[in-house]
């Protein structure tokens, strides 16, 4: 953060603190990381809630990117000026829940505020990520997405592939990649954004194999990574082999390579379902999406996918009146019609079962099947220990380590086996260090 923005922020904080007592309403600060059309969604939700009653006032504030917002929340907490609601991306979940006293679990909040709250009415694949092993919901799901395979139908036609029957398994994807390459897509047959999300996190869940012990960390911080197992090794070895002639071409750690799909360079790309808006706006070809591919030999595959996106965390140390307002707002958010509207207009996943059923019944997905793909993946099967989600402290750093090792394999510095082992070993070191700070 620059000095200037720090000064501006502290000035703003002081100004807000000074103006608060003058208002009769209880103000609820909501810090978030959404820009553009998504920012409008946040503002609209706050306005609608404020108009619906007069005891509480939600005040949304944009705090920068996901990591920036998390850092702003942490810094504010350390300065005793935390907001009531903080939007945190899924990667920060471990960090949030490890800090006892810093956050107020949602299930506790709803109970204490006396709000009607049934955790079973939410989509389990979404809430599973934000709940303890016992099923206690810790944060409120807000904008969720999952990983799907986007593909270029025009390119499929050109390569003699059936555009209405996208590849289902990884071997089929490799085959398609080779054909596409031969048909002129010689820089990239297929690719993925979010390298570790695709090739470690989603891969484990989709094949029902563990990334780590203790239900991938959901059951405790003494979790140990163990994804250097045969199927992961097979997948990484395949990618490394295919990278050599660019049938597979690596597109970076985050989503900065997504433009390779919309520009037509890469005809197959695994990335977030939230890529939808971008594809709709920029792709000048016929496109569709499909579930992520799987290895047919894996027992029970495909299992179910896990989510990305962010959830709303309630910060600790606030008054009962303020919590009451937050709880009312969460009830407001979970309303069926509101969720239906959010989902169909913004492309976010609906968070409750009722909202999903209602959209399904309305026939909405017949015209827009691509908006249902991530939901079909998430609900494909009842989540297991390996597919409920994952929760690791320092996951931001651990993901960097994983990417480093994947890159070392892809550029030939290490064998896939050595890279995978190193990814596990170095990740475990970070987990052990995190465990010491989190366990008390």
């Amino acid at each position, binding site marked *: 953060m620059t000095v200037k923005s720090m000064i501006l922020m502290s000035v703003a904080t002081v100004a807000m603190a000074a103006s608060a007592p003058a208002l009769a309403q209880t103000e609820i600060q909501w810090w978030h990381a959404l820009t553009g059309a998504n920012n409008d969604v946040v503002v609209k939700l706050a306005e609608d809630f404020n108009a619906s009653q007069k005891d509480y006032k939600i005040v949304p504030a944009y705090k920068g990117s996901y990591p920036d917002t998390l850092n702003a929340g942490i810094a504010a907490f350390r300065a005793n000026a935390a907001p009531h609601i903080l939007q945190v991306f899924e990667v920060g979940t471990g960090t949030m829940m490890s800090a006892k006293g810093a956050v107020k679990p949602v299930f506790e909040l709803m109970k204490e505020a006396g709000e009607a709250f049934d955790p079973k009415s939410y989509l389990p694949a979404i809430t599973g990520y934000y709940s303890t092993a016992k099923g206690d919901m810790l944060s409120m799901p807000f904008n969720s997405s999952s990983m799907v395979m986007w593909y270029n139908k025009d390119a499929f036609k050109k390569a003699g592939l059936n555009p209405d029957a996208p590849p289902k398994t990884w071997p089929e994807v490799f085959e398609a990649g080779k054909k596409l390459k031969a048909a002129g897509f010689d820089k990239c047959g297929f690719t993925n954004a979010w390298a570790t999300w695709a090739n470690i996190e989603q891969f484990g869940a989709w094949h029902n194999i563990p990334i780590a012990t203790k239900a991938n960390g959901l059951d405790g911080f003494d979790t140990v990574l163990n994804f250097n197992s045969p199927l992961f090794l097979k997948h990484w070895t395949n990618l490394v082999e295919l990278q050599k002639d660019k049938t597979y071409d690596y597109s970076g750690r985050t989503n900065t390579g997504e*433009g390779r799909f919309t520009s037509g360079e890469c005809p197959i790309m695994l990335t977030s379902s939230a890529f939808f808006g971008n594809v709709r706006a920029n792709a000048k070809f016929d496109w569709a999406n499909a579930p992520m591919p799987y290895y047919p030999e894996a027992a029970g595959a495909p299992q179910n996918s896990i989510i990305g996106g962010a959830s709303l965390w309630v910060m600790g140390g606030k008054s009962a009146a303020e919590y009451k307002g937050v709880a009312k707002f969460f009830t407001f958010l979970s309303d069926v019609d509101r969720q239906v509207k959010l989902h169909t207009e913004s492309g976010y996943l609906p968070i409750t079962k009722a909202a999903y059923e209602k959209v399904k019944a309305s026939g909405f997905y017949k015209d827009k099947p691509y908006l249902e793909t991530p939901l079909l993946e998430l609900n494909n099967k009842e989540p297991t220990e390996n597919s409920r989600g994952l929760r690791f402290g320092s996951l931001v750093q651990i993901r960097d380590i994983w990417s480093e090792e994947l890159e070392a394999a892809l550029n030939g510095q290490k064998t896939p086996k050595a890279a995978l082992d190193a990814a596990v070993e170095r990740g475990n070191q970070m987990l052990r260090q995190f465990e010491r700070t989190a366990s008390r």
Partner: protein
Amino acid sequence: MQKNAYFTGLTVPLLLLAPQLVITVLFFYWPASQAVWQSFLLQDAFGTSTEFVWFENYQLLFSDPGYLKAFWNTAIFSSFVCVLSLGLALLFAVMADRQIRGAEIYKTLLIWPYAVAPAVAGVLWLFMFDPSLGMLARGLSNLGIAWNPRLNGNDAMLLVILAATWKQISYNFLFFLAGLQSIPKSVIEAAVIDGARPWRRFWTIVFPLLSPTTFFLLVVNIVYVFFDTFGIIDTVTGGGPSGQTETLVYKVYSDGKGGSNLGGSAAQSVILLIMVIGMTAVQFRFIERKVSY
């Protein structure tokens, strides 16, 4: 008139010094001491649990091969950036110092990049050299050059060096130009009359007279590559591929800000602080002797 003005008592001098002292203590000594203190702690992001661990953060760092590699990366990165940005800036300054038509326009154009923030500079270079988006990268691939900074460490390093150099040339250029213009014309003219050729004039007269400027810029540039370049690296490569462009300052930034590992990050900044103090001491002790003001 009194030759030496002096104050009786301590109040007035302290009062006069106070603003400077307060700022130094508040914005340098206090944060620096916080970093030293933090580097001995193991703490979660929210600061709810803290453990004093002595030198464990340092031990962890030096057993991390990634950290040792960052030293090597920093050595490569900083030497290339310093040599290139000083060398090119000097070349441009000498060119712009000549009596040519439109010199003002050249000067202005050369100074422009300094107004660009490091992160923006990084994005600009990324746009030119990204293997998919970049115009220049496409040109390279049409020429049959396999350019892929996403996976090739040398390509990535070259890219961050170019971006960091480009960003710093303007600043160096400005000082070199000012330095050149402050050299009395009569000295050069005398040399011309004596029959000295341009090359000889430059090395025996101009360059020695520029030595204070060069020395100042060397110090500034080292501080720049050590402390100011993380924005460029973050936007261009994010330290990748496989940590091959991860420099010391970038690691401080990514571990501390991205990873919320405050102890490890603080330990790294303390090491960095010690290194820079060391280098500055060496510079002023040994290199400065060769500088004639």
